[in-house]
C-alpha cells in the first residue's frame, strides 16, 4: 500500500482544499503543529460550507426552534415533534442540487438515500417522502433530460425502499437551467422515548461500521492533491456516487432491528464527509474522543489511502456506538441482513479523534475542534442595485386581459401550474397503505396506523416572490405551507427547511439570505410553528448567475381524527361555492404576468399574518365540524386557476361550476389571476351555507357565496349587482386536456 509521502503543505494544497489562509492558521493553532495531508483533508471537509454552516450559522440562530411539542430541534440528524400517543414524527429536508445537475438520476437517487438515512438513524421508520424540484424551461433538451433523470432517480430509490413519495412541488424558471434544485423531504414515525441520537457516549464502547463497503466515491479534496497519492487515482475516483437502494433497504431494516434490541448507545449515518463527520460529530456531542483503526474498514477497492477512506462519500454506510459487550449481537443482526460489518474503533475519554492505519497513527485531531470549532462568518450584506428595477412595475403599461378563456388555458398548461401527474405516477405513493390523500390535493395526508391520527405534509416556496422581496417571499412561503396543511384539515406543528441560495460571499446574495431568514422567523413566530431541522445549500450559481433565492419549506401538520381530512376537489352538483378572504390588485410576481406578459416583476402579494391566521382558524373549524365538502387555497394563477383545479383534480369525476365574482375597482385580470393571499375556496352543501357564513363572520373573515357546483363547464361572470359579463366559459374537457397531460406532452418529445 502506498503511504502518502511526508508532504509539505503548500499554499496551493491549502487553496485546493478550499481553505483560506486564516482557516489554515487556525488549524495549525488547534493542532499545535502543521497538519498532515489526511488531517488537512478532514479539516477541509468538516469546515466546508456544507458541513460547518460557516456563512449561515449566525443567522440560523434567529429561527424559532422550540415549542411544547418539540422533542428534538436542529443539531441532530433530523428534528422530532410529538403527536401524542407516545409517538413523534421525525423529519428533515435536504438538497442534492449539484450532484443532480452532473448526473440527474444518481444525484437525485442518492439525495433520497441520504435523507432517508437521516430519518431512520433517529430510530424512526420512514413513512413518507416529498420532493421539491426546480428546473429551467422544458423547451430545451437539456432541461427535459434533467427532469426525466431526476424524477426517475427519485422514484428509483424511493420506490425500491418502499417509502411512498406522497407529494411534492415542481416549478420551472429558466434561472434554474444551470442550477436545478432537487430537495427531498422525509418523515418517519418513532416512539417518543426511543429516539436515537448520534452520540459516542461511554468510554470503552465499541465503534462499529456497517453497511456498504467504502470506495473512492465523491472524495472532495482537490484534484491536484490527489496526484500526490498516485498518478492514476484521479481517474479511479468517481465524481458521482451511485446509490444502491436495495442495500439501503437492508440497512434500514437492520437499523430498526438493532434499535429494537437495545444494543446501541449512539448511531449516525455517513453522509457528507463520511467517516470523518460521523466519527467526530458523535465524539464531539458526547464530549469524548474516538480511536478508529482503518485497517478494519470494509473496502471495495484495493490500495485506498487513509485520506481516501476518511473522506469517501460512499453511500449506504453507518457508524454505531454499541453498548460494551454487545458487539456480537450487533454483528449477527447486520449479517442477517447481508451487510458488511466491522468493529473499527473505540470510544475514548481524551476528546481526540485518533485514526490509525496498519499500526501507524495517521491523524490526531481534537474531535470538538473538527466538528464544532469551524470558522463562522458574518458576511457583509447589501441589497443589489437592481432590486428597485425588479419591483417597480407600471401596471398601466400592461393591457387588461382580453380573451380570459385563452389566458386561463395558457396558465393551466404552463408547466408550473399544470398537473404533476406525469411526475407522481412514477413514484409509488401508496406503499405502506397509509396514503389517505395522495398527490393531487393541497397537502399529502398519511394515517398513523394504530391511532386515530393522520399527518399532513407539504413543501412550498415561490422563488419569484423571494427574488422580488426576500423577506416577504419567505413570509409568503410559510403562510402558504400552513394554508395548504389547514386546507386538508391539519394543524401545523413543525417545519423543516432547505435554504437554496447563490454565493454567500456576494453581499447581494447574503442580503437575500438574511432577509429570508427574518421573514421565516417572523412568520413562524406568528403561527407558532417551530423549525426543527434544516439544511443550507449555497453556491447555486453558474457563471455569476444565481438562482432565485429559494428557501424551500417542508411543513408538517397533525390531524387528530383521520376521517376528518379534506380534499380540494368539488364533490357534488348543487353545492355552494364560497370564497373566504378578499381580492386585491396583487398581480406583482404572479404566474399570470410571467406566462401571459413575460414579466417577472412587481411586488409580491400583500400578506397580513393576522388575517391569514384567523382565516386558517376559520377553515380548520369548518373542516372539523364537518360543514364543508371541499377546501382549496388560491395560489399560483389565482382564483380562476383555483376554481379550475377544484373542477378537475378529482380522480374519477370532473364537476363544473358557475360563479360570479365582484369586479369592484379591480382589473379583470387581477380578479381572475391575481395572487392575493389568505383566500380559500370552499364548497358546502346548501344546508350548511349559513353555518359557514356565520363562522366566518364570527371570526371576521370575509366570506361570500360566489356560485354553485354543476354543469360541464367552468363559467365565471365578472361584474357588480347591476350588470355582469360572462368572462370565462370553457368546457371541462378542454380545461382537462390542457392541464392534465401538459407535462407529459412536453416531456415525451425528444
Amino acid at each position: 500500500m502506498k503511504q502518502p509521502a511526508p508532504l509539505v503543505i503548500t499554499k496551493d494544497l491549502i487553496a485546493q482544499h478550499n481553505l483560506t489562509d486564516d482557516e489554515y492558521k487556525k488549524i495549525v493553532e488547534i493542532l499545535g503543529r502543521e497538519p498532515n495531508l489526511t488531517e488537512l483533508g478532514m479539516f477541509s471537509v468538516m469546515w466546508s460550507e456544507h458541513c460547518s454552516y460557516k456563512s449561515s450559522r449566525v443567522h440560523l440562530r434567529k429561527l424559532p426552534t422550540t415549542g411544547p411539542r418539540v422533542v428534538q430541534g436542529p443539531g441532530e440528524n433530523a428534528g422530532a415533534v410529538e403527536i401524542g400517543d407516545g409517538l413523534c414524527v421525525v423529519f428533515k429536508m435536504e438538497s442534492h442540487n449539484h450532484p443532480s445537475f452532473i448526473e440527474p438520476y444518481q444525484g437525485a437517487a442518492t439525495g433520497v438515500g441520504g435523507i432517508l438515512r437521516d430519518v431512520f438513524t433517529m430510530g424512526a421508520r420512514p413513512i413518507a417522502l416529498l420532493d421539491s424540484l426546480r428546473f429551467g424551461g422544458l423547451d430545451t433538451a437539456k432541461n427535459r433530460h434533467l427532469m426525466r433523470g431526476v424524477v426517475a432517480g427519485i422514484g428509483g430509490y424511493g420506490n425500491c425502499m418502499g417509502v411512498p413519495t406522497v407529494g411534492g412541488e415542481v416549478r420551472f424558471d429558466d434561472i434554474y437551467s444551470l442550477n436545478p434544485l432537487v430537495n427531498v423531504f422525509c418523515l418517519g414515525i418513532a416512539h417518543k422515548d426511543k429516539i436515537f441520537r448520534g452520540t459516542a457516549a461511554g468510554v470503552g464502547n465499541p465503534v462499529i461500521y456497517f453497511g456498504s463497503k467504502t470506495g473512492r466515491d465523491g472524495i472532495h479534496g482537490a484534484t491536484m492533491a490527489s496526484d500526490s497519492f498516485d498518478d492514476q487515482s484521479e481517474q479511479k475516483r468517481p465524481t458521482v456516487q451511485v446509490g444502491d437502494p436495495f442495500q439501503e433497504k437492508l440497512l434500514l431494516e437492520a437499523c430498526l432491528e438493532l434499535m429494537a434490541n437495545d444494543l446501541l448507545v449512539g448511531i449516525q449515518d455517513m453522509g457528507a464527509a463520511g467517516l470523518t463527520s460521523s466519527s467526530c460529530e458523535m465524539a464531539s456531542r458526547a464530549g469524548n474522543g474516538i480511536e478508529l483503526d482503518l485497517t478494519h474498514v470494509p473496502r471495495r477497492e484495493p490500495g485506498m489511502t487513509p485520506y481516501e477512506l476518511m473522506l469517501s462519500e460512499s453511500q449506504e454506510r453507518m457508524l454505531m456506538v454499541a453498548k460494551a459487550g454487545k458487539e456480537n449481537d450487533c454483528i449477527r443482526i447486520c449479517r442477517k441482513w447481508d451487510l458488511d460489518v466491522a468493529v473499527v474503533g473505540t470510544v475514548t475519554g481524551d476528546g481526540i479523534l485518533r485514526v490509525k492505519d496498519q499500526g501507524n497513527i495517521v491523524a490526531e485531531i481534537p474531535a470538538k475542534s473538527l466538528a464544532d470549532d469551524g470558522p463562522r462568518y458574518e458576511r457583509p450584506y447589501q441589497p443589489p442595485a437592481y432590486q428597485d428595477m425588479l419591483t417597480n412595475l407600471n401596471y398601466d403599461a400592461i393591457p387588461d386581459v382580453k380573451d380570459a378563456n385563452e389566458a386561463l388555458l395558457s396558465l393551466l398548461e404552463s408547466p408550473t401550474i399544470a398537473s404533476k401527474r406525469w411526475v407522481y405516477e412514477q413514484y409509488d405513493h401508496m406503499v405502506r397503505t397509509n396514503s389517505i390523500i395522495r398527490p393531487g390535493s393541497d397537502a399529502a395526508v398519511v394515517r398513523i396506523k394504530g391511532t386515530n391520527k393522520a399527518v399532513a405534509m407539504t413543501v412550498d416556496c415561490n422563488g419569484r416572490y423571494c427574488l422580488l422581496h426576500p423577506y416577504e417571499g419567505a413570509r409568503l412561503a410559510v403562510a402558504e405551507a400552513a394554508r395548504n396543511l389547514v386546507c386538508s384539515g391539519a394543524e401545523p406543528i413543525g417545519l423543516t427547511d432547505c435554504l437554496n441560495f447563490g454565493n454567500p460571499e456576494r453581499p447581494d446574495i447574503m442580503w437575500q439570505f438574511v432577509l429570508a431568514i427574518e421573514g421565516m422567523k417572523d412568520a413562524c413566530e406568528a403561527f407558532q410553528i417551530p423549525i426543527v431541522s434544516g439544511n443550507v445549500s449555497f453556491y447555486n450559481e453558474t457563471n455569476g448567475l444565481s438562482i432565485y433565492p429559494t428557501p424551500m419549506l417542508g411543513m408538517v401538520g397533525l390531524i387528530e381524527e383521520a376521517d376528518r381530512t379534506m380534499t380540494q376537489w368539488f364533490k357534488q352538483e348543487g353545492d355552494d361555492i364560497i370564497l373566504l378572504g378578499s381580492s386585491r390588485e396583487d398581480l406583482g410576481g404572479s404566474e399570470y404576468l410571467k406566462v401571459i406578459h413575460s414579466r417577472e416583476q412587481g411586488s409580491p402579494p400583500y400578506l397580513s399574518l393576522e388575517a391569514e391566521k384567523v382565516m386558517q382558524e376559520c377553515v380548520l373549524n369548518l373542516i372539523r365540524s364537518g360543514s364543508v365538502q371541499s377546501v382549496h387555497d388560491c395560489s399560483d394563477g389565482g382564483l380562476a386557476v383555483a376554481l379550475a383545479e377544484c373542477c378537475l383534480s378529482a380522480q374519477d369525476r370532473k364537476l363544473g361550476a358557475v360563479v360570479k365574482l365582484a369586479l369592484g375597482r379591480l382589473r379583470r385580470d387581477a380578479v381572475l389571476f391575481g395572487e392575493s393571499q389568505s383566500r380559500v375556496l370552499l364548497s358546502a352543501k346548501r344546508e350548511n351555507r349559513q353555518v359557514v357564513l356565520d363562522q366566518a363572520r364570527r371570526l371576521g373573515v370575509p366570506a361570500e357565496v360566489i356560485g354553485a357546483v354543476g354543469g360541464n363547464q367552468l363559467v365565471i361572470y365578472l361584474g357588480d349587482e347591476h350588470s355582469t359579463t360572462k368572462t370565462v366559459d370553457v368546457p371541462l374537457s378542454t380545461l382537462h386536456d390542457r392541464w392534465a397531460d401538459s407535462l407529459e406532452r412536453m416531456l415525451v418529445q425528444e
Partner: protein
Amino acid sequence: MKIGVLVFPGSNCDHDCRHVFQNVLGQPVEMVWHKDALPAGLDAVVIPGGFSYGDYLRTGAIARFSPVMGGVKEFAQRGGLVIGICNGFQILLEAGLLPGAMLRNRSLHFICKDVYVRVENAATPFTSACTPGQVLKIPIAHAEGNYYTDPVTLAGLQANAQVVFRYCTPDGKATADASPNGSLDNIAGIRNAEGNVLGMMPHPERCAEEMLGNEDGRLIFASMLEAVQQIKSKLSIVGS
C-alpha cells in the same frame, strides 16, 4: 385461517399484507424470513410486492432461489393457496409456478395509479366473492408488468380459464389503451392449471379499507378466507 407472508430482502409490501390479514380481516399472520423453512400449519402463503434483491438482473430472478421457495413449491403442490402480488407474481413466474415472464412496461416508466380490472374467472379461491365480469378498481405500482408468454401457452391459459384478471376501461372493456403496461391480452393476473396459485400485478392490499377510499381489493382476501373455510369444513367432515 393462518397466513404466511414471505419476507425477502427488499420486500416492501410485506407489512401491508400483514396489516390487511391481521388488522382488517382479523386473521393470524406469520412473517416468514426467506432463509427459513415454510412453517407447518399455514392455510395460505402470500408473496408480497417490493423489490426483492433490488430487482437486480430481472425482477424475481434471484428471490426464486431463496431457501423458503422449496417449501412454497411443495405447499402449492399439496394444493395450498399461494398468492403473489406484483413482485410476488414476478417471483412466481421466475420460479415456474406460473407460466410466462415479465417485460418492462411499454412506457419504460414505473407506474403507480389506480387501474380497472375485469374478473374473468370468478370461480377461483381468490375471486369467489366477485361476480363474473365484475370491474374492480385496484392500484398498480410496477415497472415490469408487461406480461409475456408464447402463443401456445397463451392459448392454454385462455382455454383453461387461467386468465383471472384483465385490464379494462372503467366500464369493463379490455381495450389496448386500458392496459397500463402493454401486457399480452391485457393480462393482469393468472392462475395455475390447478387453480390454487394466483399471480396478479395490481395491489389489492392497497384498497381494502374504507379509510383509503376504496375497498375493492378486500374481495380477493375475503374470497381466500371463504375458500380456506370451505376446505376446512370438508376436512372436518372427512375427519369426523
